[in-house]
């Protein structure tokens, strides 16, 4: 049980590529922190630096109040679940689970007990004597989890553990990981590029971009209140509609006066765009229907407005009956508008009428 404290950490590879450009992050004891971002944003590198698989160029990482910069991975008392599971192919499942404990000189009786316990929790008892190649992807994933659990480490590190599974199993294992982490109350760092995984798992969500932290906070806060264009576009599926203010003005859309003058881009969540007029003050955009995606419980309507480069995505409940070419009127409540500064792409708050 220990928190992780990351202070001004940098990573520069030989050859001068800067993968991590100064990160400060507190991972509270017992919480699950998700690092999310597009590939190449440095999230895996950061995780591997916590694990001790990459050297730290600058700054410090503390696990449980102890600086671990110079410690070997084994001495950091962490367990890691890899994307490809990294199970030892020549050992049985039992051997895989026992390996880390044996190396640490755990008594045989205790090893057996811990394996029994972990196998029971993960429901892999029937496979204990099989080799990894005889298991399905989901079962291998469980064994990889088991290898982390039996160690009873200070922290779990997950490196995109679900990306090799099919969609259904991924959803199932996501819930499972959450449940296990809550049960053991072990600090966990979870890396993923899947924003849905990030939203559902995280106690604390950290959005990374180009070696920096873009935004962190509770998942719903990050979703509801993206602080930059990058976060706005990255979080949510489909992502936020981002439209240049100039394009809207050219279209003759009446924007509220409260929008700051420095605003360059407006953000509209697909679920905040409605086809019926809401009661509160709103903006109106005339558009025509481009395409409809029927997801089942809801429809994604792609609306084309004149002079606006990208289709505006509208999330609407039920099945939308429209045909391409139909005229649509889109409404967005003033309170649901996100304003981003022209020059920096940072969020600017709408000035509320006094």
């Amino acid at each position: 049980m220990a928190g992780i404290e990351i202070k001004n950490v940098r990573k520069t590879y030989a050859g001068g590529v800067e993968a991590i450009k100064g990160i400060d992050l507190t991972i509270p004891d017992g919480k699950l922190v998700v690092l999310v971002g597009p590939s190449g944003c440095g999230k895996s590198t950061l995780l591997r630096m916590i694990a001790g698989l990459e050297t730290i160029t600058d700054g410090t990482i503390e696990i449980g109040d102890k600086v671990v910069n110079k410690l070997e991975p084994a001495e950091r008392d962490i367990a890691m679940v890899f994307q490809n599971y990294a199970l030892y192919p020549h050992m049985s499942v039992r051997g895989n689970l026992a390996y880390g404990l044996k190396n640490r000189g755990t008594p045989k009786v205790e090893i057996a007990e811990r394996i029994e316990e972990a196998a029971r929790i993960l429901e892999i008892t029937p496979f204990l004597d099989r080799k990894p190649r005889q298991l399905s992807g989901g079962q291998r994933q469980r064994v990889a989890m088991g290898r982390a659990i039996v160690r009873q480490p200070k922290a779990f590190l997950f490196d995109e553990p679900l990306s090799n599974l099919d969609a259904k199993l991924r959803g199932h294992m996501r819930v499972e990981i959450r449940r296990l982490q809550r049960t053991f109350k072990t600090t966990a760092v979870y890396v993923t590029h899947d924003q849905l995984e990030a939203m559902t798992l995280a106690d604390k969500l950290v959005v990374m971009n180009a070696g920096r932290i873009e935004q962190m906070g509770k998942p719903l806060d990050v979703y509801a209140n993206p602080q930059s264009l990058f976060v706005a576009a990255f979080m949510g599926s489909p992502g936020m509609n981002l439209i240049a203010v100039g394009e809207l003005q050219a279209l003759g859309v009446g924007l509220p006066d409260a929008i700051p003058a420095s605003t360059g881009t407006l953000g509209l969540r697909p679920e905040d765009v409605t086809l019926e007029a809401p009661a509160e003050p709103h903006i109106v955009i005339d558009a025509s229907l481009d395409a409809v995606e029927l997801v089942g419980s809801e429809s994604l309507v792609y609306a084309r407005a004149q002079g606006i480069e990208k289709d505006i995505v509208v999330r609407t409940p039920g099945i939308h009956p429209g045909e391409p070419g139909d005229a649509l009127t889109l409404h967005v409540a003033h309170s649901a508008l996100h304003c981003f500064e022209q020059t920096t792409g940072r969020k600017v708050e709408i000035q509320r009428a006094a």
Partner: protein
Amino acid sequence: MQTKRTTFTNRGLPYALVLPQLAITAIFFLWPAGQAFYQSFLRQDAFGFRTTFVWLDNYERLFADPSYLNSLWVTAIFAISTTVVSIGLALALAAAVDRMIRSARAYTTLLVWPYAVAPVVAGILWWFMFNPTIGILPYILDQFGYDWNHSLSRLDAMVLIVLAASWKQISYNFLFFLAGLQSIPHSLTEAAAIDGAGPVKRFFTIILPLLSPTTFFLMVVNVVYAMFDTFGIVHGTTEGGPAQSTNILVYKVYNDGFIGLNLGSSAAQSVVLMSIVVTLTVIQFRYIERRVEY
């Protein structure tokens, strides 16, 4: 199984295309092998005037002959030593190169060179280096008080041919081990590092077991090499001596047949060799697939 089928319009063409290879196989492999097999049942007098069919007499004499049994024993020692030395050194070199990042290619190229050297030339190279009169190594050994003379000492002679034969084979083994090492995912060693295994322990508990299919394959290949491909090395260095101590089976076939002109016995010996290589090949094909772990 998915197979690619090419359709020939002319039925005879495919046969015509494989014919040259079949002809080469028949003329240079099947025919001599058949000749040897037939000849192993014959006995010829010293001047070649009379040939008699003696059934298994050549074989019976062979296995009653102490010098042949000695040769079997010598071959076994030679093959095992060569295999152990060349596999051990190749594995160490491959493990070292696998850790390199930038210079790995240059080292790989250099390490592959000895494979291109002809066996006789390799033998002569080592013969020069170990020559008791002019060689550099006996000179160095002399400083340490060891009197090297492979034309007198049975042990020295054996060490010499084992070294020469291993040196040539290390390149081949090295390439296979390096490829094997590079196919082991890094995440496995990383997982083992997190699991508290140091570099040495990781090597013996994770990497070596995963290399076992490669190691097994190389063991068979090296034994075959040491038994059949080392004629040139022996011929270039010790010529089987001193006192038969390096007279391995292939060399004895040549010696008895072409020097001693005992063609019947020589043919019988080559048939024995042939059956050994067939056995080894069968072992290889049979078991190599099963030993693959993943």
